[in-house]
């Protein structure tokens, strides 16, 4: 059989066109998609407020979080943790968080890893304080964006959740989070993270860490409610967020941050 150039071009275009039709059948137009990208009319947007002046580093929040959320108690992973910052007169910043501060800070020495401790005398300290960390439930969550299977997602009220049945454990989200809040759950073998105790806040309760904080250093609130005391603080006081330059729009607000806090 001979085939002319014209007919070859015609037939290849026909085949290419024929291939495109079933491919387009993979995705039908969904009006919900357009609607979803419009401004939401939700009444709730969960946000968190941390007052670093008030935190004393007792670690009750970490203990409560691990028990409440079934994170193996002795495994070195935790949904929330407390960091200690000790800034000395020589300009150095010492940071530690032994066991995520699950047992508080049982010594004045700084844990510098590999079982070594660094002793710092009280006279050398310029300032020292504690900073609780947890998931920032970002408005632009990079961890959600990188999930290849749709196992992690953001709910209408702003909380980022992980679908344990759908997660394949690829770990992209763990690498994608600039705040390092994600880890592998040692039992379920899926990505795990703080979800603002979604089972508590949706029942009108506070998160376990907020309930266990004796000093009011941690508070949760609804940003869409102008009368919420947390919203009032965020709107009227000098609050800051972590790693703003990443453009993730984090929704955990801090009072009393300094430039040393990363």
């Amino acid at each position, binding site marked *: *059989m001979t085939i002319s150039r014209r007919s070859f071009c015609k*037939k290849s275009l026909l*085949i290419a066109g*024929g291939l495109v039709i*079933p491919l387009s059948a*993979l995705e039908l137009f969904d009006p*919900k*998609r357009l609607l*979803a*990208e419009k401004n*939401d009319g*939700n009444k709730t947007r969960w946000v968190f407020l941390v007052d670093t*002046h008030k*935190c*004393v*580093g*007792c*670690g009750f929040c970490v*203990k*409560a979080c691990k*028990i*409440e*959320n079934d994170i193996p108690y002795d495994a070195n992973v935790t949904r929330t943790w407390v960091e200690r910052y000790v800034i000395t007169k020589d300009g150095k910043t010492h940071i530690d968080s032994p066991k995520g501060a699950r*047992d*508080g*800070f*049982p010594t004045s020495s700084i844990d510098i890893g590999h079982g070594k401790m660094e002793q710092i005398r*009280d006279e050398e*300290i310029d*300032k*020292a*304080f*504690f900073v609780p960390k947890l998931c920032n439930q970002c408005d632009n*969550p990079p961890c*959600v*964006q990188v*999930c290849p299977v*749709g*196992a*992690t*997602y*953001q*709910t*209408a009220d702003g909380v980022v*959740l992980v*679908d*344990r*049945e*759908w997660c394949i454990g690829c770990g992209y989200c763990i690498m994608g989070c600039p705040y390092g809040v994600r880890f592998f759950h040692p039992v379920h073998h899926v990505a795990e993270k703080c*979800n603002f105790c*979604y*089972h508590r806040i949706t*029942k009108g*309760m506070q998160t*376990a860490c907020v*309930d*266990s904080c*004796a*000093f*009011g250093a941690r508070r949760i609130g609804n940003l869409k409610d102008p009368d919420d005391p947390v919203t009032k603080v965020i709107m009227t006081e000098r609050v800051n967020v972590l790693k703003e330059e990443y453009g993730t729009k984090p929704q955990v607000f801090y009072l009393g941050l300094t430039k040393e806090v990363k």
Partner: protein
Amino acid sequence: MKSHVWRPLYVVLVIIALVLVAREVLVPDDFGIGERGYMYGWHRPSNEQQWKDVKVKYRTAEYCKECHREKYDEIKTSPHANINCENCHGPALGHPDDPKTLDTDRSRELCARCHFRLEYAASGRGKIRGIDPKTHNPGLDCVICHWPHDPRKEGHKQ
């Protein structure tokens, strides 16, 4: 025209059909775009309910108060008023049905979480009265001398 020209097309069509069938079988019915849009909303909405159904373990002092009113009133009028029952007594989840599940921590280490003196003036820790556990009655439980529900009172005498 000979069939070997069309054969690749059939193969591709069969592959696409297989992918569509597999997709129909594997993807949950409710999987789709949620309220947070195309970029952040892909999920299985029934999973939200699964997270909401997680059991609450820390039931807060309001729950303890229902039976232990006198203990509640004692601590809430003491300098320890800000501490919740479950911080020291453990989560109330199985209580009172299964008393063993209440895991009360009476250790020195528990008290030291706040009362181990750290000279951190920039944080609330520096304002808490504290001791050095190495020199302050080592080996003894704090609750022998200090009553945790009201630290102004004397503790358990053995």
